[in-house]
């Protein structure tokens, strides 16, 4: 069984970002990058499947500049068997349809039984690459997976919905997107990190296709104005609140 796991390297959301002067990208210097957290559930699940079925190969794939290699090395340290770097000549925003086309091209050459990927990346939050990719590949897509079983060439999953979970079955090959709660991702062991050096990362140059999307501009969210604290006693405070709401024409 071949499991492909797609990774995206994203800026650490714990550190505030700034938009650059031209407004076409964030300031990339001194950013701290991490693996997209939802992708961690994907690789963890792939590792668990491999531990269960035994005969499986995990291929870690990431599209990006040279920094993507770091993400892939991490995947190899966790236990992926090999990695493929889809190298693009830019550090900036790559539209999701372009990414999906590149992934599709890769999958059609590589072949696969199962694709696992995070439900979205926490940098631009588009969350559309899986759907686009599944359409191009013509395979089923099961999103927001929180539980997964594999057997008889099929996957059986629980999908998280607003008011519960839905159980769905699909034949392989198929694409699954992983949601928080699916599993508890492990840390790479020191030995795993040492082994990662000996595993290959193949580099494939990717020419970016045309996109139906174009990035217009980026801007920082407007700064919140300071609030008003009403310190009067009840019921004066309620009266004051109503007064403000009326002034602001909320009521």
């Amino acid at each position, binding site marked *: 069984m071949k499991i492909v796991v797609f990774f995206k390297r994203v800026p650490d959301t714990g550190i505030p970002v700034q938009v650059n002067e031209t407004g076409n990208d964030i300031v990339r210097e001194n950013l701290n990058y991490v693996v997209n957290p939802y992708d961690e559930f994907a690789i963890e699940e792939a590792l668990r499947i491999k531990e269960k079925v035994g005969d499986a190969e995990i291929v870690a794939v990431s599209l990006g500049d040279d920094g993507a290699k*770091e993400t892939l*090395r*991490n995947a190899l*340290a966790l236990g992926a068997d090999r990695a493929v770097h889809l190298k693009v000549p830019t550090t900036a925003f790559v539209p999701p349809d372009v990414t999906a086309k590149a992934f599709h091209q890769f999958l059609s050459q590589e072949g696969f039984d199962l694709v696992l990927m995070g439900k979205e990346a926490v940098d631009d939050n588009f969350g559309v690459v899986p759907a686009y990719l599944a359409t191009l590949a013509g395979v089923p897509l099961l999103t927001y997976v929180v539980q997964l079983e594999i057997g008889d060439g099929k996957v059986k999953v629980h999908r998280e919905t607003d008011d519960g979970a839905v159980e769905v079955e699909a034949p392989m090959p198929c694409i699954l997107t992983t949601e928080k709660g699916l599993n508890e991702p492990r*840390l*790479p*062991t*020191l*030995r795993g*990190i*040492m082994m*990662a*050096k000996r595993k290959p990362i193949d580099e494939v140059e990717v020419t970016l296709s045309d996109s139906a999307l174009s990035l217009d501009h980026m801007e920082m969210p407007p700064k919140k104005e300071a609030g008003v604290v009403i310190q009067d006693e009840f019921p004066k405070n309620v009266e004051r609140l109503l007064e403000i709401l009326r002034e602001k024409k909320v009521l």
Partner: protein
Amino acid sequence: MRELKKQGGGFLLEDLQPSEIFTPEDFTEEQRMFGQTAEEFMDREVLPNAEKIEQQDFHILKTLMKKAGDLGLLSVDIPEAYGGLGLDKVSSMIIAEKLAKQGSFSVTWGAHTGIGTLPIVFFGTEDQRQRYLPGLASGDLIGAYALTEPGAGSDAMNIQTKAVPTPDGSSFVLTGNKQFITNAGIADLFIVFAKVEGEHFTAFIVERDTPGLSIGPEEHKLGIKGSSTCSVTFDGVKVSQDQVLGEIGKGHRIAFGILNIGRYKLGVGAIGASKEALKIATQYAKERVQFGKPIAEFGLIQEKLAWMALRTFVTESMAYRLAGLFDEILQPLNPQDPSYPQQIWKGIAEYAVECSILKVYGSETLDFVADETVQIFGGYGYTSEYPAEQIYRDSRINRIFEGTNEINRLLIPGMLMRWALKGKLPLIPKAAATLKESLTLMPSRLSRPEGPLGEEIHMLSMAKRLTLVLSAVAANRFKEQLREEQEVLAALANMVMEVYAFESALLRALKTKSPLMEDAVRLYAPAALRSMEEQAYHVLPYLAAGDELRTLLSTVRKLAKLSVLPDRIQLQRSLAKKVIEKGGYPFGT
């Protein structure tokens, strides 16, 4: 033979090029990944359990040690042949630093992987290594080190525990009391020091369940409360001949030598704990509002944040420079060579002076950082509801264990003197020549090196000169009796330490060309030189009198003279601004 400048203590006599030192900016991707695993292990597994650890929930502590073992965090310094990873010392230090975020866990881990495990790595027989190291590496066995006794603390040679051979010569019977034994309550294995027939200092490996061995109640400690510290009593504990570690009568080599490792690891742990405290203090300073604004906006709070970051930066530069020296000497060794562990041992002993320096400087940096953390928290810092109080309590032990800072201060010039007398270091002629030359030297007329930090490079060379001058004066005055003059030795130690500290930070800034680091060095350099000058004034009137004293004082004054004084207030503020922006330690890692 290594070049003089790269020998232990050689930094006093020769200058290194910036490219010749190792800095955290040189970490490989793999080393950073090791650090990341260690850090995430702390964040995910240890910190959420910190409260339980502090309540001495040893079940949790042991479970966490086992999990650390599963990740490989207990096998870093154990050769691969015995279930370890045999990693380089840079990696080993990165991991020690990252694990220092929680004092009790860090001490438990440090005692286990250091003094609890390494004596077997370095001195164990093949059989002893095969028997114990895989378990110690996995965390199935916990190690402890039992040297200290009620009457033998710093004076460790004075231990009273006896090992009496049985009549048939097959075993020894141990009798005595050990005290303040870290990990005693959870350990499976003890490295025990005793005197065979009351005189031959010898190390033994003693398993916990050996009849006659009993563990006392937990000590009530000021800090690191979650770690286990008990007395261990040996009441006729019979151990077989093959539990002797190393040679009979040579146990002191193990006992004292292993402390070199404990010392540099302690120093590096202090960096991790300082960074954590700085993060917590910065966050608080940004949130706490007084007089209508966050206290982080006030100059005196910024001054604290700046110096907390700066001293941590200096310690970090010292520590990884040492790690780099270790690896240069250890990397070429062949792990297949049967004497491999012994060669590592020798390599580390080469830098015993630097190990002591790092121990003292690191623990005092951490105490400074912890103290300022409490101060930034103000009244809340004095309550146990906020983290500052625990940081303050936990930091204090570092100046005491692994050899008190006083003992280490005596060791620094003590070892240098011994090497000088043995001819290993040409310290004596160099110091004498420097003294002679300095009397007539006109530092203000010397040209400064071109490029950034030229003035600071000059100041460092004056700092080295000052140290050599004082060494020569002290040696002339007391000859071999200098070893009895503790106050003088401590002043020399402070100067030697400051040279190593100043130089490590300066070379790192020159190597990385980071403007932030350059400014840090501009801020640090005058303080370093002035503190050294003060050391000289402290002891010179004791070492000389009359005209000689007057000449020496004026020599010191001119060497330590600051010809350019930077605007330190602005430097502090801009460094503090970086700390506040970053939410903590601003120098990279």
